[in-house]
């Protein structure tokens, strides 16, 4: 696998690879500022956490320098928050209307994301055709089968769009969380006052109070402007803040909690399944007992119980309670995944190569890691994708009930809750839109799971994996 110097040189004399690398460089440069910004702020946070290091001045200088690097997909390059000054728009991108400027930026973000994805696939194919020593590996078949699986591709596209939404959340919203929700009285906007015929200035908080969505007489519908010339793609919420911004930022926390919890529960499930499959007998039996006992407590109820009990502990401070939620999910959700991979793991433990490895005197942990784990990772992927959908539903369900993610942090379930009283009025969008998004994303994850399953194991009956995305009944 190692690419030595001469092959790298070969690569750049070969036209296609050089082109590929150039395109990659170009894509990177477009967003270099954002990447550097992310890295720098991460290191600063890391350094500040270490006691005894006093480099604040230097670090802020670096941070500011990085901020100055222009980025294509940022609010500064393509601004949409301008105002009408009687003859045209001021401060928006190319003088477009705020709606158009925002739509342009959002489209560009998605184009960029798909271009980056396509670039990755392109690179893989060049590697496969030109540089890999083997003409064919079993994994190629998996990829090819997945490419022919329309339903799986559909799922992948949805999931990818969701991930893009979470990654580019600050650039996608028509406004920012800080300006629009958290610190709305610390920001001012200019707007065109048609009564006086002049441009006026108002605090965002005051403007929000005049753009509430609370029923028929007070409502800012999706895809409209409010009285202050601010564009709302999904309308406003019941407190006048922008629903789209809320949802986009909320997708971040859903995704982070979901991925973290699934990764944790997958590792717990894999470890336990391999252990029980390797040792069988009593070890296996006791694990069945433990998992049955955990499963006998309905997952959602267990979640509610644990979140209330742990609400005041320090761990709930981390990431607005999201980290705690992920931990709880992992410790209540591993049983389902464990059940699903225990069978395959038991089958593999009966194979000859396990016996052979044992007779060579390899240690059990090595056998499990090297000779068993690779055969169950496929199943982990499948069930991981499917439980992710369920986890997203459960997170939303908990925050609908007012548990889980702490209130000022945007979360999809809370939007449903906030809009519940207005569903039958003109402000139906507050509850309806987040629900549709959840449904879409969960369907996407389930479809992706189906696709991966059919790609990895074409013989499997599609009746398997029924733990899919039901979210413990949320």
């Amino acid at each position: 696998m190692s690419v030595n110097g001469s092959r790298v040189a070969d690569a750049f004399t070969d036209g296609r690879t050089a082109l590929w690398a150039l395109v990659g460089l170009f894509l990177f440069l477009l967003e270099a500022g954002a990447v550097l910004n992310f890295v720098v702020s991460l290191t600063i946070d890391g350094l500040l956490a270490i006691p005894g290091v006093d480099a604040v001045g230097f670090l802020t200088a670096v941070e500011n320098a990085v901020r100055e690097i222009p980025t294509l997909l940022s609010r500064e390059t393509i601004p949409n928050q301008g105002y009408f000054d009687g003859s045209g728009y001021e401060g928006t991108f190319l003088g477009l209307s705020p709606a158009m400027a925002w739509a342009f930026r959002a489209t560009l973000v998605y184009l960029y994301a798909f271009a980056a994805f396509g670039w990755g696939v392109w690179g893989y194919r060049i590697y496969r055709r030109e540089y890999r020593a083997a003409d064919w590996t079993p994994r190629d078949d998996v990829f090819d089968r997945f490419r022919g699986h329309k339903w799986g591709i559909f799922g992948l596209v949805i999931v990818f769009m969701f991930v893009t939404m979470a990654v580019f959340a600050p650039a996608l919203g028509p406004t920012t969380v800080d300006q629009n929700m958290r610190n709305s009285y610390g920001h001012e906007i200019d707007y065109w006052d048609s009564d006086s015929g002049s441009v006026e200035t108002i605090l965002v908080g005051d403007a929000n109070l005049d753009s509430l969505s609370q029923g028929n007489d007070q409502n800012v519908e999706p895809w409209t402007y409010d009285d202050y010339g601010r564009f709302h793609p999904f309308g406003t919420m019941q407190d006048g803040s922008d629903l789209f911004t809320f949802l986009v930022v909320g997708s971040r926390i859903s995704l982070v909690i979901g991925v973290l919890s699934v990764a944790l529960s997958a590792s717990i499930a894999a470890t336990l399944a391999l252990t029980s499959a390797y040792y069988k007998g009593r070890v296996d039996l006791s694990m069945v007992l433990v998992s049955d006992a955990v499963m006998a407590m309905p997952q959602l109820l267990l979640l509610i119980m644990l979140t209330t009990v742990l609400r005041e502990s320090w761990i709930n401070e981390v990431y607005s309670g999201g980290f705690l939620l992920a931990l709880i999910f992992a410790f209540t959700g591993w049983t389902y995944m464990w059940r699903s991979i225990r069978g395959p793991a038991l089958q593999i433990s009966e194979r000859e190569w396990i016996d052979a490895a044992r007779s060579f005197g390899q240690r059990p942990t090595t056998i499990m890691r090297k000779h068993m784990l690779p055969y169950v990772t496929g199943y982990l992927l499948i069930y991981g994708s499917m439980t992710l959908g369920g986890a997203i539903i459960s997170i939303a369900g908990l925050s609908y009930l007012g548990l889980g993610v702490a209130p000022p942090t945007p979360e999809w379930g809370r939007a449903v809750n906030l809009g519940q009283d207005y569903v039958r009025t003109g402000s139906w969008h507050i509850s309806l839109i987040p629900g549709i998004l959840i449904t879409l994303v969960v369907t996407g994850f389930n479809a992706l799971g189906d696709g991966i399953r059919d790609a990895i194991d074409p013989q499997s009956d599609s009746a398997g994996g029924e733990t899919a995305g039901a979210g413990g009944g949320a």
Partner: protein
Amino acid sequence: MAIPVIWLGTSMTWYIIFMGPIDPATRLLSEGQVRNPAAYEAAQTQLGLNQPPLQHYVDWLSSLIVFDLGRTWLLYQGSSVNALIMDFLPRTLWLGFWSVLIAIFIGVPLGFYAGMRSNTVADYVASMGGIVWRAMPNFWLGIMLLAVLGSSQAIFGFSWEAIGPNLTSGISGNPDLSYMAGNPIAFFTNPNATLQAIKKVAPAAIVLGSASMGNEMRIGRTAVLEVKNQDYVELAKVKGVSDRALVYKHILRNALVPLVPIITSEAFLLIGGSVLVESVFGINGIGYLFFQAAIQGDLPLVGTLMYVFILMIVGINLIQDVLYTLIDPRVGLEGE
């Protein structure tokens, strides 16, 4: 297997509640009372928290075994938990019963239909619908359903309240089951009240059953597809068995087998989901009680209710095993 599972589950609950970072005694008392050492002492004594943990554990467990569930602290202050559960449980059972039944009667036939006509437009529509239906969050679906039913006059041209039995107290809320109290035969002898109670929980039951409905449809479809290609179906066809008999006798019966574990394992979802659905539809069921107890800090009640839930789930699992052996004799009780 059932007994150790119950024991282990209950022990975990005990540990989480009484050994967790929150002192249940302080949660039960108001701000002022916490500072009053006498009140705090009294609460601790009553909860038995001044005993050594092991002693407390044994006491707690043994009182659960004999169903001496004590009294509530905050919620319906001071009422007997046994009476409270007896009051709340029927509504949840009623809701659960109908959600299972509705899911079976819609999901299974749809799945079989899709399986019989596999790869047609009807199949795709049904399968797609099932997948999307399953991915919808219950609480959101409930809100939307209530909104649609509430304005059904404007949307469908007839009002949900007006068709069928009359609902006197709005479209959502508690089903009136009091007519059956102490007299279960009233279910049949008083059909009007029965229908009213059914109609009251029907929207909630549909929502609660939505996830299972999707699952049952999917399994039903694959089961039919599998059975359809079995040799004995071919043989029956060659023998000249009529289409109708073929479908009902040879295909459907065998396709039902894989559905049994699915239907019973939905119990997990139903009981878990009852919390959300009951809060959305305003049904005072046991899930709602659990949620209220949890957010108001009546942790002892939370623990007790969790014990009841564990008993219910383990009981359903036992029923599933028995059912499974009855339907498919090839599966032994010691099976796997």
